């Protein structure tokens, strides 16, 4: 998260329920908003098609295309996403605001290039109607842009715009889907995708406007705005690196005066591991599904999309069970853990003696243990609840017992995976890139190996095993890093500061 903490904290200090609800709403919007809005629109379109008794082949085509666009765009953007988050956090912390907007465009170029090429190859190759291919191409490209803007959305202060963008996009998309059959009587996947595209386009334009408005011409140089950004922006990871840069910030400012341009290549050279981490984390999340598509149980949809509907639907719904963690995590991290983390690094950078630094570490560690335990508890509660309800409710959605079984295991898998992701982000607050790289590699390797080795029915169990191994290891790693945090903070710093110029 590039930083929504201060705003949330401000809201949480006011005790009124309305404010508290607003805080959760904001964190929901910026964290799960993009994904949820898209998923809901697709489900909406599916329901409309089902209600109008559209042909199954078209429904499958819509679903298949949407899932592929979703997975591919997410994986492509994930290569740069974590690094961009770090870059934006650094820029905010070092007050190099003028580089933020260039970074939006640089990231877009890097994400869109492979997206356009892959999409182009699909358009040329796929034996589908031109209208459908073009609609899917546009859908895929728009998703890439939205995921990318999502990084910046967390750093925005104008949540109204963000909310508006998702709300308008969602409503327009869904309304289009509902009205289109009324007007034209057509229920083709292509038409539905075009309708969704209009909605997504609204969201995209809204987000782009919000990002441009925040980081464009009017830089947050006024006192109030700077204060907000100061307090919110520095992730722990940045603060950790801040130790290196003791007395070096003036140099950064000088640099920013000289170089107002942003080059993603320089950030890639600076944080190459973050690219690997982002990519492996995303791939680790989808490997089991991809393996499932390839395996015998997979089917060809229109000879183009290899799918596994009996598996894909449980995955889709199971993923929704992680929303509590995704929302609560941001609130917990930014309002409880972050201030303690910041306090630790402030004690380190300030005049703190070893005893004071140790006390700050203990305070932070205590909060972290509490928050992570609470998060695990709440997520477990929701997961169990979901499993219980799933058994009763999912049959009404056409789920078979095998699908429900898969859903149950997947819900538990995502419970572990989401918490694993939380721990990974906390580790990145401490700049433990090496550790996280290893963890994400292990997660990916386990997920791939188990998915391939286990029987078809057990692919969900493969994901479950991989996620729990990753979660256990990440908890161990977190414990280790927290215990030896002083060493990490101090001795990880080079003897001499040699920074890649920006």
């Amino acid at each position, binding site marked *: 998260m590039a930083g929504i903490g201060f705003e949330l904290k401000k809201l949480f200090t006011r005790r009124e329920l309305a404010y508290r609800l607003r805080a959760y709403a904001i964190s929901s919007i910026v964290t799960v908003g993009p994904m949820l809005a898209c998923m809901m629109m697709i489900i909406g379109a599916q329901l409309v098609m089902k209600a109008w008794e559209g042909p199954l082949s078209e429904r499958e085509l819509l679903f298949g295309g949407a899932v592929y666009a979703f997975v591919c765009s997410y994986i492509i953007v994930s290569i740069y996403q974590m690094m961009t988050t770090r870059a934006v956090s650094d820029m905010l912390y070092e007050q190099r605001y003028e580089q933020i907007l260039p970074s939006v465009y640089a990231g877009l170029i890097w994400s869109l290039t492979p997206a356009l090429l892959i999409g182009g190859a699909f358009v040329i190759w796929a034996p589908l109607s031109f209208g459908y291919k073009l609609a899917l191409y546009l859908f895929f490209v728009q998703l890439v842009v939205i995921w990318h803007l999502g990084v910046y959305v967390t750093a925005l202060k104008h949540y109204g715009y963000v909310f508006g963008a998702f709300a308008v996009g969602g409503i327009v998309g869904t309304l289009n889907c509902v009205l289109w059959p009324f007007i034209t009587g057509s229920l083709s996947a292509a038409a539905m995708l075009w309708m969704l595209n209009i909605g997504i386009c609204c969201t995209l334009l809204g987000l782009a406007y919000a990002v441009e408005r925040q980081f464009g011409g009017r830089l947050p140089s006024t006192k109030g705005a700077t204060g907000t950004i100061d307090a919110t922006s520095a992730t722990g990871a940045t603060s950790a690196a801040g130790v290196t840069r003791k007395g070096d910030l003036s140099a950064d400012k000088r640099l920013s005066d000289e170089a107002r341009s942003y080059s993603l290549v320089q950030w890639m050279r600076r944080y190459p591991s973050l690219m690997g981490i982002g990519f492996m984390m995303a791939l680790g999340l989808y490997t089991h599904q991809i393996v499932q598509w390839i395996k015998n149980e997979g089917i060809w949809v229109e000879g183009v999309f290899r799918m596994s509907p009996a598996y894909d639907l449980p995955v889709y719904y199971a993923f929704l069970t992680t929303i509590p963690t995704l929302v609560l995590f941001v609130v917990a991290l930014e309002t409880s853990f972050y201030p303690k983390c910041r306090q630790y690094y402030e004690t380190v950078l*300030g005049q703190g003696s070893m005893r004071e630094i140790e006390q700050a570490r203990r305070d932070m560690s205590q909060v972290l243990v509490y928050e992570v335990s609470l998060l695990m508890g709440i997520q477990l509660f929701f997961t169990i609840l979901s499993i219980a309800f799933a058994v009763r409710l999912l049959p009404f959605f056409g789920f078979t017992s095998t699908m429900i079984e898969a859903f149950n295991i997947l819900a538990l898998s995502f419970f572990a995976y989401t918490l694993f992701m939380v721990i990974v982000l906390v580790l990145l607050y401490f700049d433990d890139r090496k550790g996280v790289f290893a963890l994400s590699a292990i997660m990916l390797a386990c997920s791939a190996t188990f998915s391939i080795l286990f029987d078809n029915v057990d692919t969900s169990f493969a994901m479950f095993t991989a996620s729990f191994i990753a979660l256990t290891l990440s908890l161990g790693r977190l414990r280790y890093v927290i215990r030896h945090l002083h*060493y990490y903070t101090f001795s990880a710093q080079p003897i001499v500061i040699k920074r890649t110029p920006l």
Partner: protein
Amino acid sequence: MRIALIAEGSYPYVTGGVSSWVHSLISSMPEHEFVIYAIGASSEQQGKYKYDLPANVVQVCEYFLDAHLQDEGKWGKRYRISPQERDALLAFISGASHVDWQVLFNWMSDGGFGSAANFLRSRDYFDLLSELSETKFQYVPFTEWFWTVRSMVLPLFVLLREPIPQADLYHCVTTGYAGVIGSMAKWRTGKPLIITEHGIYSREREEEIIKAEWVPSYFKEQWIDYFYMLCNCAYESADQVITLFGRNREIQIELGCSSSKISIIPNGVEFHDYVGLPAKAVGDNRIHVGAIVRVVPIKDIKTMIQAFAIVKQEVPDSTFWIIGPYDEDPEYYAECQALLEALAVEEVTFTGSMQISNIIGKMDLLVLSSISEGQPLAVLEGMAAGKPFVTTDVGSCKELLYGMDDAYGPAGFVAPVMNVDSIAQAIIELCNHPDERVRMGVAGQERVRNLYSKQQFIQSYVALYESYEEGRTWQASALN
């Protein structure tokens, strides 16, 4: 015999007393081969010698305190440190008065040590620091302390990892880093170690640290302790410690050097080089006051300028010549220029580096306002040229100007350090009394001729080296 001369911050990069001393020692002993182990402050100095090296210099090993900039190191390395090594390291890091250097040298020579940067980023080092901070430095800001200790120990750690040149005898021109390198050389090769201490290194560093604005007050003591620790290492390891005059010997004993190791060999100048130098033009009735110095803070040029401002008011036809290089510390030179402008003092000339024999004869009197000195060659040279002196009470200046119960009489005045008025009054006194100038000039000239000749100085070192050479020959014959 091959002698390794270990010099720090002086020969061959910087001109000045110690460097001149080294140069004349080497030049006067063509029968010996010399290896120069030069420790410079900055790598930029590499190969930029201020002296034409004599033919008997067979090798120059150059090491620089900023060499650590080349090595970033890797973190996370683990070391196997025995309890003994741990104690030695703890003592070293904390600047304890006694460090088991043998253990430390042994440990650092071990193949598993790797680079200094690796060790300073290792967990073992951090654990040692944390332990120290818990026990000894509880209340200091840890981050500052961490970086202070790192910057304090890193240059020495890097130097100790460098190869030691082969020699039959190691001769350090100072204690400090050079002294520790000499000690390591002795430990590694078993060859004798001699130290010649011109000024008292640890005292000089102490003065520097006390005045330094870049060292926070709560770290001054630690820095000072650190330098005293380095000097103790040299005193402990040396077979012989040579000093230039009695007062230094007393200080060395006070600092813990065994009195039996210390002997005195004063500096000397080639007396005949200073006789019949070109004098000032006939009819030039102005009074020329000269200072043969490098323009650096330790020479306290600013006090000299302030004193001259007073002199100029009393003796309007006086001129002031600051003879020596001013490129060593450009910032300080600029400050001196600014002070001159602020005081509106005229007729002050910075000559830069030049052959002093061309100008020294034209001076009526000479001044030295140093804060710290050993036995300044500039004073010996001025005295040899028959010039009366006004010096501050540093090093052996008092001994040189007033003599040690000899019959030559005073060769000038000694004023308290940084005391502008006293220095000015002494200069005015000499300006206004030409007879006194002559009398004191002659007294100085006689004292140098009889007690501080280059011949005596060289012969003493010839004898010193020979004593080790004999030992070597004896050892060799015994082995045969």
